[in-house]
Structures are given as C-alpha cells and as structure tokens.
C-alpha cells in the first residue's frame, strides 16, 4: 500500500487501541462513578470518607503520574505485572471514575429534598427511591458535565504514548518521524475530531431525550 492510504491505514490501526481504551473507560468508569456517588451520599461516614479519599487522590494528581505509578510502580511495589493496555485501562477507569463520582454526587444532592419525602410517604425504600426517583432525574442534570468528560477522555487517551503504548497519535507520530511529513498529524487530528463529533452528537441526542419532561 502506498502513500496517504497506507498512512491512514496505519493510523487507523493505532486508533483501534485508542477506541478500545476509550470504550473500556466509559463502560466501567460511569458505573464506578454512580456507585461512588451513592456511597458518598450514603449515611455511612466510613464509606463516604473512603470514597472521599479516593477522589482526593485521583482528582488531585496528574493522570500521567497515575499512569506511571500503575504501569511502573505497581510491579515494583506489589509485584503485579500489567501490560501497557491493562495499566492504561485501570488508570483511566480509576481516574475518570473519581471525576464521575463527584459529578454524579453533585447531581444527586441537587435533587429537591421533597422528592425523597414524596417517595417516602408513598412507602418507597431508600434503594427504590434512589433507583426510580433520584438517579433518573440526576441523569438529566449531569449530562452536560458528563459530556465534557467524555470529550476530554478522547484527548486524554493520547497520554498512553508516555508508556509507549501504540495508539492513534503514537502511530501518526512514527510516520512523521520516518517520512518527514506532517500529513499524519492532520489525519490524526481529523480522526480525533470525528470521534469527538460522534460523542457530541450522542450526548445531544441524550439531552433531547431527557429534556422532554422539562
């Protein structure tokens, strides 16, 4: 394969890793964030401070440092050996889970206390109230912030270059270094834009869906 087509193909191959990391992170960090938020608003002081500690660490240090720590540090301290993709996935899930925890917690506590009271006098338990009344309303409120995170994540995946994991940007960079052309960067930029556009489109649809009742 020659020229530009070959380049595009090579960069797309790198994108597959990027997309896999992206998918795993979204699919696991959002539920982690929901659980974290529920724990943080729960009556258990212990649970809420453990989660507070977790979000403090993961929101308070650079993602890159966390990636180094999990990829280079864990084998050193705990003897756990992770491949690059595993290390990146764990780091991203924990990091984004921390942000989602705080976003969802903010959403939950913004729901009027009257909703809890109405559910309670109808005989609903706490878990029924959360599942059926509070969380569904929270979704609408956290969509804009969640959408921001989802877009940031596309770009954050490029950080895996720091542990030399093959991804979209790293593959593009390799061609640039080899062939003295910046076209791969343009191609990479276009692919990132396509990805973020798809995500923006999905979130717009979600916002439309959830705004029918407002």
């Amino acid at each position, binding site marked *: 394969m020659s020229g530009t087509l070959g380049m595009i193909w090579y960069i797309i191959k790198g994108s597959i890793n990027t997309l896999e990391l992206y998918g795993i992170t979204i699919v696991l960090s959002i539920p982690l964030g929901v659980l974290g938020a529920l724990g943080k608003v729960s009556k258990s002081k212990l649970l809420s401070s453990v989660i507070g500690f977790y979000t403090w660490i993961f929101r308070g240090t650079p993602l890159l440092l966390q990636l180094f720590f999990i990829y280079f540090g864990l084998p050193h301290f705990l003897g756990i050996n992770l491949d690059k993709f595993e290390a990146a996935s764990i780091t991203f899930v924990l990091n984004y889970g921390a942000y989602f925890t705080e976003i969802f917690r903010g959403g939950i506590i913004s729901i*009027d206390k*009257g*909703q809890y*009271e*109405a559910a*309670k*006098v*109808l*005989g*609903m338990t706490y878990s*029924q109230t959360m599942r*059926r*009344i509070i969380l*569904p*309303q929270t979704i*609408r409120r956290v969509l804009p912030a969640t959408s921001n995170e989802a877009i940031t994540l596309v770009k954050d995946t490029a950080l895996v270059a720091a542990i030399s994991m093959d991804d979209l940007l790293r593959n593009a960079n390799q061609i640039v270094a080899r062939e003295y052309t910046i076209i791969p960067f343009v191609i990479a930029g276009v692919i990132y834009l396509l990805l973020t556009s798809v995500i923006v489109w999905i979130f717009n649809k979600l916002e439309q869906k*959830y705004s*029918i*009742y*407002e």
Partner: protein
Amino acid sequence: MNMIQATNISKRFGNLEVLKNVSLSVAKGEVISIIGPSGSGKSTLLRCLILLEKCDGGRIEIEGIPIEAFDETGRRIPLPHKDVKDGVRKMGMVFQNFHLFPHKTVLENVIEAPIIVNKIPREEAIKEAEELLSKVGLLDKKDAYPSQISGGQKQRVAIARALAMKPDIMLFDEPTSALDPELVGEVLGVIKKLASEHMTMLVVTHEMGFAKEVSDRVVFMDQGEIIEDAPPEKLFNNPDHPRIKAFLEKIL
C-alpha cells in the same frame, strides 16, 4: 378506636421547641382542619405523624398500632419495624409544593408506588390509576409530564397519587398555598369530594371558608401548642382564646 391517637408529642429543632406536648385524636371519617399563625408548628405536627420528622417525646398510634413511643424516662421505645411500616402506610400525604416526580408522566406518577411498593400488576395499577385520575378530572392529562400542567392540576395529580396507595387517612399540608387564587377552587373541590366520601383527613390550611365548610373540628395551633380544638361554629364564632380572635380578625 381512633384513626390517629397522638399523645403529648414534643419536638425541638435545636433550642427551639416547635411542638410542646401536643395531643390530638382523630376518629374515623373525621375531617379536621389545622389553622394558626406561620411558624406555629402545623407542618411539623403533620410531618411527625407520618414520621418524616422524628419527634422527641410522646406517643403516636395509627388505628391502634403504635408507630412512635417513649418511656417515662424519655427514651424512645423500639417498635417492631413491620408495625411502624404498616402504620405509616395507612396515611397518605399531600404537600404544599406537590413534589410530583418530574421525569414521570401523570399516569406514571400515580402507578409508581402501587407497582413498586405494593407489587400490584401493572395493568391493574393502570386501571385503578385511570379511575382515580378521572375522579380528580385529569384523565385527559394522563400522558402529560408535570411540567406541562398547571399548579392546580399538579396538586390534583398529587392527591390521586396518594390515593392510589389506598390510605385510610390523608394528610394535607397547605395544599392550596402555592396556587394562583383562581386554581384554589379545583383542589378544594377534590378535597371536599373526599370529605363527602368520609375519608379521614387532617388539613393544614389558610382557607378559612373551606375550614368552616368541611371540617368536623378545627384545631388552632399557636407557638407549638394546640390552644383550641373545637367544631368550626364554635372556633370561628366564639373562640375561647383571645389570640384566636385576634388571628381571625387579622386574616378575615
């Protein structure tokens, strides 16, 4: 046996004594209005009865089942969880600000608790909900969201939602205070209809005409105490307490 028997209820928020040994009994089918100045503890009393607020002393029985009790030394007596749940379930409550579930349609608001709490089959819950909605005159709005209907309509949905749990007692906390004046009538109309069906009701209200017309008894609260509990003719025309006279003169 009384539907509600509350004895010497006390409640404080910090240093503020909001309820001071309040006792109230409500017989089956009775409609009782609770009136009194702002801050006198009317809402707190209702909220204590349905356990939205934990009182600090006294005893509450619903249809003979104790749901809250304290011993002589003022310690809370642990009661069987199931009794408390059953007792509380005999009451429905309607709030000043409706508190409808905004993400659910009118019909979904009404069927939610019957399905989730009472585990009634969905079709049956829908059938009953539609009957209740036509009773409050809102069957044509069943697929609307709360944001799409007026305040008076919202409050009527809230009443239907509470009735869907088949309570024996309904508590209303200023059900018309958040409404534009022209919408008050439709909500009071629904409550009057319930009164004519002998629903046992406790209604906190500032609507004196309504209190006079439908109540069997009117309870006047002031500074955390019930200072008079009498039939409406007596309380409105010839109250024992000068403070009631002053209050009525001011608002009428």
